[in-house]
Each structure stands twice: as structure tokens, then as C-alpha cells.
């Protein structure tokens, strides 16, 4: 029972990070039709921004406050970088989808190389507040506290995004733009501002994921964003392109099933580490595409 609980909560924590990247990806694709392969870079920006700030905020003695302040600055940098990417690289390439893919893939590769060149390619340890690495016992399982933080933050981001989309004028514009961008413009609305805003929101969410990934993994590495991005893309497809709630559901399914499949077959059949967690996610993607091509939030095939 305790193993099941640990795997479930850890899977939810991992799913929380997938969701934080996937939410922005999904919004950007839904509104702009842009497959942003550079989205993992925004997570890396948040992760390194948080790590760098934390190690340079010597004046703040309390490590929890230092982490919080660093994470907030990392989020702001993530949002700013994302907005700049949209303004400088994506905006001149509207409607040119192949070029968008090429430029975002190129940016992703270049950014990872740049981070490696500046801070090295090896893992850098991340100083985590002690209460996060402490454990809480639930049903006999000792769960690291950071898992609850990751899940809690993802829920707050999910609710915040839903509120933003449902209750604000820009949310209305984004929802309408995802349906018919030209008609939004024909109502006298400068939809390009919404594009930049969506990129910035996606960048902030991914940077939050970066700040949390530092705690989850206990270190920063240059390719963290790109490695998590693959699963985030799978989450977006499974959840249904453009659906935030769908992405949240898919992130939970992917994160949890990945943990189960990484552990149970190995423990039950005494086999080596075959990477069954990752394989199961790909199989899950295939299954969903066969049964519900438009994803969990879409209609049946």
C-alpha cells in the first residue's frame, strides 16, 4: 500500500511539471497554431534563473524565502524571454508553419548549447529548503513534502488559467481566437497582443515548472527543458490540443502511469530497467490517438 501511495504522489508531482509546460504549449497551439519546440527553453530559463538567483541572494538568510524570491524572479524572466521570442522570432513567421518549427527547434538546440557553454553541461546541485526534503507519512508511506508543493502549485496554475480564460476580456479573446482568429480581428481586436500575452503566460508557467523541477530533481541541468518537453507534447496531444483541462487530466495520467510502469514490472518480474515507464507513455499516446484522435477533451473518433 505504501509503495502505491509513494508512486501515486510522485507521479502526480511529475504530472504537475508536465502540466506546467503543457498548459503553455496547449494555449499557444490553440490560439496561434504554433508548435513551439522552444517551449522547454522557457523551463530551463526558469530553472537556471531560480538557481542563479538563489545562489546570489546572500542577503536573505531564510532559505525558504530565498527560494520563493528566486522562483518569482525566474518566473518573471521566463515570461519576458517567452514574450521576446514571440515578438522577435515568431511574429515575422505567422502562417509560415514549417519555418516556425525550424526556428523553434533551432532556438531550443542553441539555447541548450548556450546554457552548457555558460554554466557547463554537468548537473549543478540545487539547495532546497529543508522542509521540502522532509517527509510526511500518509497511509504508511513517507512522501517528500516537495511533491505536495508541486501538485499544489499546478492546481493553483490550473485554476488561475481557467479563471483568466473564463473571466477576463483577454481570456475571451484567446478562446475566440482559438476558434476563428480572422473573425476576432474583424471585430476590431488586435489579436497580436493576445499572441504575445499567451507566449508570456506560457513562459511563466513553464518557468514555474523549472523552479519546481530544481526541487524535484535536486539539481539543474541544461537539457532539463528539452527532456521534459517531449512528455509535455505527449500530454498536450493526449489531453486535446488547446484544452487546458484536458492537459491537466493527461498530465496526471502520464505522470502516474509512468511511475507505476517504472516500478511494478521491475519489482514483480525481477527484470532490469527497461524504461517501461517511457514506453508505456508512448503506447498510451498511440491508444488515445486510435480511440479518441482529438484527445481526452475532444470528441470520439
Amino acid at each position: 500500500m505504501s509503495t502505491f501511495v509513494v508512486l501515486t504522489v510522485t507521479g502526480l508531482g511529475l504530472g504537475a511539471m508536465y502540466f506546467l509546460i503543457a498548459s503553455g504549449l496547449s494555449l499557444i497551439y490553440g490560439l496561434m497554431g504554433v508548435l513551439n519546440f522552444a517551449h522547454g527553453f522557457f523551463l530551463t530559463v526558469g530553472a537556471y534563473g531560480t538557481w542563479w538567483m538563489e545562489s546570489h541572494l546572500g542577503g536573505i538568510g531564510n532559505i525558504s524565502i530565498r527560494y520563493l524570491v528566486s522562483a518569482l524572479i525566474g518566473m518573471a524572466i521566463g515570461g519576458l524571454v517567452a514574450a521576446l521570442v514571440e515578438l522577435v522570432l515568431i511574429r515575422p513567421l505567422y502562417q509560415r508553419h514549417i519555418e516556425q518549427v525550424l526556428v523553434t527547434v533551432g532556438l531550443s538546440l542553441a539555447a541548450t548549447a548556450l546554457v552548457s557553454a555558460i554554466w557547463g553541461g554537468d548537473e549543478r546541485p540545487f539547495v532546497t529548503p529543508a522542509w521540502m526534503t522532509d517527509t510526511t507519512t500518509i497511509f504508511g508511506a513517507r512522501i517528500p513534502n516537495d511533491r505536495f508543493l508541486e501538485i499544489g502549485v499546478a492546481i493553483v496554475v490550473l485554476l488561475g488559467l481557467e479563471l483568466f480564460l473564463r473571466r477576463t476580456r483577454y481570456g475571451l479573446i484567446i478562446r475566440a481566437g482559438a476558434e476563428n482568429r480572422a473573425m476576432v480581428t474583424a471585430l476590431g481586436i488586435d489579436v497580436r497582443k493576445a499572441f504575445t500575452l499567451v507566449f508570456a503566460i506560457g513562459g511563466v508557467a513553464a518557468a514555474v515548472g523549472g523552479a519546481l523541477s530544481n526541487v524535484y530533481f535536486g539539481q539543474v541541468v541544461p537539457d532539463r527543458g528539452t527532456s521534459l518537453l517531449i512528455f509535455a507534447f505527449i500530454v498536450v496531444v493526449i489531453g486535446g490540443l488547446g484544452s487546458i483541462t484536458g492537459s491537466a487530466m493527461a498530465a496526471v495520467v502520464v505522470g502516474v502511469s509512468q511511475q507505476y510502469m517504472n516500478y511494478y514490472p521491475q519489482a514483480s518480474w525481477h527484470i532490469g530497467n527497461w524504461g517501461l515507464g517511457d514506453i508505456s507513455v508512448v503506447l498510451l499516446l498511440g491508444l488515445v490517438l486510435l480511440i479518441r484522435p482529438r484527445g481526452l477533451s475532444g470528441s470520439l473518433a
Partner: protein
Amino acid sequence: MAVPAVATAPPLLELRDVHVYLGQSHVLQGVSFAVPEGGVTALLGRNGVGKTTTLRAVLGLTGRSGVIRYDGEEITSTPTHKIIRRSIGYVPEDRDVFAGLTVTENLRLAERDAEPRYDLVYDLFPELKTRGEQRAGTLSGGQQQMLAIGRALLNDNRLLLVDEPTKGLAPLLVTEVARTLERVAELHTVLLVEQNLGVVRALAGDAIVLDQGLVVHTSAARTLLADRDLVHRLLGVSGGSH
């Protein structure tokens, strides 16, 4: 190229030698006409001659060359949202309501003026108020058309571009939409694309006929519709059928 003007007053909208290419197709091949301020000007023609493309070209929803002037100022290189903000309303051919948004949200999205004219819209279309929380995608065709027109009336526009408002509607609804447009025309200048000649006869003061991407006829609407042979030749339908 001379602009065939249908009125002597300074035009509110003027197109000169407007060309539009859609892929390899040369859809508008030098369209020129003027729309006077006030009343309804009908833009007529057979299917596929470029009527909808002309309206989209005015708004910059499609790439175009030539000169387009609105209220005396050239808007050819102005982005769509800025053209609309100069007090132009647009009712597209296929309504293009946002299916996933509620009726109220569709209207809210269209708000531009500080005081949107909800009283006018709800007076013309009371159903839009009672169905406020209903998703627009679940409305009937007629209700969606009311929403599309209501969206354009919410702001105090000087010019309305209305594209086939009666298309696909039941005869009773056609009469209702025509009656509404008659009231609308008292408040706004309307450039109306319409296939139903009965509606054109009831509403339009001037008529412009397109054929194969060019203006081939301009006159008072009554003059055109009184000439059955001309109507048959230009529009391929009988002028006295409605």
C-alpha cells in the same frame, strides 16, 4: 481608370482598381466602385464572381492591391483591426459566430464603444437576451444570423458590410432579417451582398454588379431590377421572381 460612381455625393467608401489573388486565381481583376454615405448599396453578381472577396479586401482580410479609401483616407495598408475601429461593422457570409462562446460572450467580445448599444440589439433581437447563456454553436441558423448582425450593431458604426444575411434561412426568417436590415439602414450606411432580389428591391438604393472579378454595371437598384433582360444577363435569374 474611371470610377463608376453611383452617386454624386463624396463617397464613404471607394475602391479603385483593386486586385486580389487567391493562390493562382485572379479573383478581383481591377474592381472600382464608390459607396455613398447613407442607405443601402447592393453588391450583386452570380456565385463566385468575387462579392465576398471584395468585402474581405475592404477589411484587409485578404491580400490586395489597388486603392481603398474610407471616409476620404486611404486604408489599403491599414491592418484589419484598425480599419474596423474606424467605425466599420462586418457581418460575414457564414455568420462566423464563436460556437464555443455563449451569446453574451459573443456580444461582449464585439464591444468597442464606451457605451455599447445593448438596448438597440436586444430591442431588435429579444432572443439574444433570453438565450444569453446559451452556446452560440447550439443556436439555429436564424438565431446565429441575428447574433452576427447584433454583434455589428453593438457599436455605432458608420458603415456596415453585410454578406448574404439571408443565405440558408427559411422564408419567414428572410422577411424578418430584411425588416431588421431596413431599420439598420436608417442608422448606418450598408454595403450589402445579397442573392435574394426581393430583399435587394426592398432595401437597396444603388446596385453594383460584379462579373468575373470586375464591375460590369452600376445604377439605381430599381433601374436594374426593372430590366428583366438585364437582370437575367447579369445575374442569371429572373428579376421579377421575388
